[in-house]
């Protein structure tokens, strides 16, 4: 990734890589342990977390969901959820123990000395207030500014976060801005009181690839300007690597490794960190296979004696199961909590990248089916949405979501459509699934127009085309057991006995790596995100489909789970010869699992080719930009790996 080199090293090499000392310290967390009282009993959420942040420094906290990273931030802000209690340790900010302050003092600190940016800019802004009002709110509340002063300041702030025409735009409402702009506005509000500490909790996760990099630049620019400390929370190592001087990796409520960003990528010592680094599909070449971190993070309800990572760790020894490793310094500024940190474990040994699937192996797969008509075909399919109607009900303003696209999916091949949100990719697959009728053009299944299928043809279409959606939390009826969820498509086809269906359900559950006896009678909420996504795949496979339609199948999952699911999909495709049509905004995941890649932009396919061609020799300007932005977002990562 040569494109990224120029943008990369600025942060990681120019800043201090030593942990902060003495008077510089802005924020320090000492041995923080925290638990929450729930109906299931007392859950320990944080164990002995210690972190330090100096003025002008940026510290990234990386971890999966449930690792305790957000709870750490909540403890810093003094905004703990109901039932949460600090058992030990303290948060010291600007020399004051946050735990000893009363609510009023804490509120004053939060508003004026700490600026916060949260994940979803839409939820962070009040849709009923003008943005100028919202940006300057901290100034009026904490800075004692008058209305006219606040207004002046708002114009200035909005200009500073790179929104042109600020005079006019302060008077607008949040819905008049794009997602990236809104997050900039949230940033403007966060810096309005010139805080000493900026906290950003997954600020770019909800943004498109093309605006992520620019937002990160803005954030580090603002931080430098203010001389503030930045606490940056993310599940994405790539993003953290771009903006942070130091990174702390959290797992199951503990800090397992802290190091300067560059050190972390070049010589991580904790097996979990190594796993995370090697788990990023974006760094693989076409045809390579990653080793996923097996299993799931531990349940905080189950007490653990040893290292929390021991049962997923390929390097675990007996001692790991009985003794919790302490966080210790193995080099200046590099701390690791692993018994075997000194033994020089290598990433490639623990988490090998193999090339079990070669490109040529995969290439012949589509040919086996090439003589049959494509399983799914969009032919000059176009979809218009009506935004406004005249009084008589005829459309007056229309929006063309998908403009006359042609797409074919054969059995045995994997086709991916990549694009930003709003590019029309979701509409494409909704048309392919018959959930949306094309305005013009046709969708064909096995050569026949799906709008004109007879009863028999319709059944066959429903049998052979199945779907898996993005969010494993909304994909299931919460009131149906897993066995019923998986059996539903078979029940609808109605040509199997109950006994046969039950057998088939067990079979597909086993196929996706779940233990049928244990999950059959569970309800969806009792499974983790990764397990649910497996169930969704099992359900889709139950009818022996010829084509799976996947809507961002891994983007809602944790990093360590993503590769598990991607590998599963690849295995399933190898075993059953099912065709896969997937859409994604994640270029890494697409590269990892696709034979053919289609780039979509504003409703049209701008580029189409093999994964190899699209990634290495992108022709269209937009593809080039997309690839460059993705690479830029993963700055040090690429440099560090080479």
């Amino acid at each position, binding site marked *: 990734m040569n494109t990224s080199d120029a943008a990369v090293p600025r942060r990681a090499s120019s800043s201090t890589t030593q942990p902060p000392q003495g008077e510089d310290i802005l924020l320090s967390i000492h041995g923080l342990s925290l638990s929450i009282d729930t*109906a*299931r*009993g007392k859950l320990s959420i944080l164990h002995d977390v210690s972190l330090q942040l100096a003025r002008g420094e940026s510290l990234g906290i990386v971890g999966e969901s449930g690792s305790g990273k957000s709870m750490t931030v909540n403890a810093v802000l003094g905004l703990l959820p109901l039932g949460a209690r600090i058992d030990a340790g303290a948060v010291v900010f600007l020399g004051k123990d946050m735990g000893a302050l009363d609510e009023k003092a804490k509120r004053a600190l939060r508003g004026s000395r700490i600026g916060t940016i949260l994940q979803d800019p839409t939820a962070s802004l009040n849709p009923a207030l003008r943005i100028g009002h919202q940006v300057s709110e901290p100034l009026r509340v904490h800075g004692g500014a008058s209305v006219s002063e606040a207004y002046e300041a708002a114009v200035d702030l909005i200009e500073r976060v790179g929104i042109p025409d600020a005079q006019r735009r302060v008077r607008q409402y949040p819905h008049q801005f794009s997602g990236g702009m809104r997050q900039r506005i949230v940033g403007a509000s966060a810096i309005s009181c010139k805080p000493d500490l900026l906290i950003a909790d997954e600020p770019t996760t909800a943004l498109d690839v093309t605006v992520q990099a620019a937002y990160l630049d803005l954030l580090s620019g603002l931080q430098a300007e203010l001389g503030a400390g930045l606490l940056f929370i993310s599940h994405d190592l790539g993003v953290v690597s771009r903006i942070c001087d130091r990174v702390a990796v959290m797992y199951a409520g503990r800090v397992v490794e802290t190091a300067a960003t560059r050190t972390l990528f070049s010589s991580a010592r904790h097996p979990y960190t190594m796993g995370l680094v090697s788990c990023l599909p974006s760094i693989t070449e076409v045809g390579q296979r990653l080793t996923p971190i*097996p*299993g*799931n993070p531990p*349940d905080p309800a189950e007490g653990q004696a040893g290292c929390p990572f021991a049962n997923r760790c390929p390097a675990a020894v007996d001692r790991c199961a009985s003794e919790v490793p302490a966080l210790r310094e193995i080099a200046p500024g590099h701390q690791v909590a692993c018994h075997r940190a000194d033994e020089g474990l290598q990433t490639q040994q623990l988490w090998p990248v193999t090339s079990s699937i070669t490109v040529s192996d995969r290439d012949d797969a589509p040919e086996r089916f090439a003589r049959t008509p494509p399983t799914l075909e969009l032919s000059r399919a176009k979809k218009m949405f009506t935004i406004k109607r005249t009084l008589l009900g005829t459309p007056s303003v229309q929006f063309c979501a998908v403009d006359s696209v042609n797409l074919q999916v054969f059995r045995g091949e994997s086709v991916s459509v990549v694009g930003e949100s709003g590019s029309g990719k979701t509409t494409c697959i909704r048309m392919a*699934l*018959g*959930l949306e009728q094309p305005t013009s053009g046709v969708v064909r299944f096995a050569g026949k127009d799906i709008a004109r299928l007879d009863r028999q043809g*319709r*059944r066959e279409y*429903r049998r052979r*085309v*199945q*779907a898996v*959606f*993005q*969010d494993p939390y*909304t*994909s*299931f*009826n*919460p*009131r*149906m*057991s897993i066995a019923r969820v998986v059996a*539903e*498509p078979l029940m*609808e*086809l109605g040509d199997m006995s109950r006994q046969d269906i039950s057998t088939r359900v067990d079979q597909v559950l*086993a196929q996706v*790596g*779940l*233990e049928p006896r*244990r*999950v059959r*009678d*569970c*309800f969806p*909420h*009792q*499974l983790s995100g*990764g*397990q649910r996504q497996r169930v*969704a795949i099992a*359900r889709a496979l139950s009818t022996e489909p010829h084509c799976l339609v996947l809507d961002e199948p891994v983007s809602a999952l944790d990093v360590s789970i993503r590769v*598990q699911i991607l590998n*599963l999909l690849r*295995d399933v495709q190898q075993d059953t010869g099912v065709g896969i049509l997937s859409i994604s905004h994640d270029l890494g995941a697409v590269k990892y699992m696709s034979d053919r890649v289609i780039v979509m932009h504003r409703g049209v396919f701008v580029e189409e080719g093999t994964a190899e061609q699209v990634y290495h020799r992108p022709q269209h300007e937009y593809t080039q930009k997309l690839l460059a932005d993705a690479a830029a977002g993963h700055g040090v990562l690429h440099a560090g790996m080479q």
Partner: protein
Amino acid sequence: MNDLTNAVSPPEQAGRPGGRIRSRRPGRRVLPWLPMAVIALLTVFAVVGPWLIPYGESQGSLPGRLAPPFRTGGDGAFHLLGTDQLGRDIFVRLAYGARVSLLVGVVGVALACLIGTMVGLLAGILNKSVDAALMRGTDVALSIPGLLIAILLASIFTPSIVTVFVSVGLLLWPTYARLIRGEVLVLKNSDFVALARVAGCSTWKIIVRHLLPNVLPSIIVLATLQIGAAVVLEASISFLGVGLPPNKASWGSMIDQGRQYMSTSWWLTAIPGLFIFLAVMSFNALGDWARVRFDPRLEGRR
């Protein structure tokens, strides 16, 4: 892939109903027995109450009128809960009233539930024109004064308890329709409904299997709250001559008739009021319990 099978650790708490872990809130343990017991007692009272005391439902004596509870009235007769403005025994009237009020509460609300849920589900799931038609119908139903409907019904049918059921049903359904439609509009865009369509489910199956179970909790909560409203509504309907004749007792009509004596004889309104309160609280607690009990997501939190 083998290592992944042991990755599955679904919880053991998915076991017997009742859950291993009890909530710390002690009140929850009494559920559902306390409200069930109260409802059972009220039902028994309605059935056998009239025979416990030797007075008739509309047997009054003007000398013994407005006797306070636990006292002997002006005519020398003892009345456990006192007498009303016509000297009728309140205990007996409460028992007779329980028959009417409980029945109206349950049947009337059930009817409203049925109509409202059906309209709400259909408006939510079917196309826009059906939705518009049904919801305008609901608006019209809401905008016509309820008592007008009752009077209309009365002029068509002979007044009886059945007209009371029908009037209560026709008066209360629009609330359900509104509530259910709103929930369905959200649910029908959820992924699991889209996946059900991909699996080939018909609209009917989607309603029965995916929508109804998920809107049920709201229906239960609203229904248990409306039982109280139905009991009071019966009094107004009967007052208009649509329901039961005025000499027939019901809790609602007892309150209604006792209203003008409130400043001097509190028991005329307070005692039936207490019974309505008990019934509504019990139904509501029972409904709340049922809502939690039958939600798999709240397993183990009871």
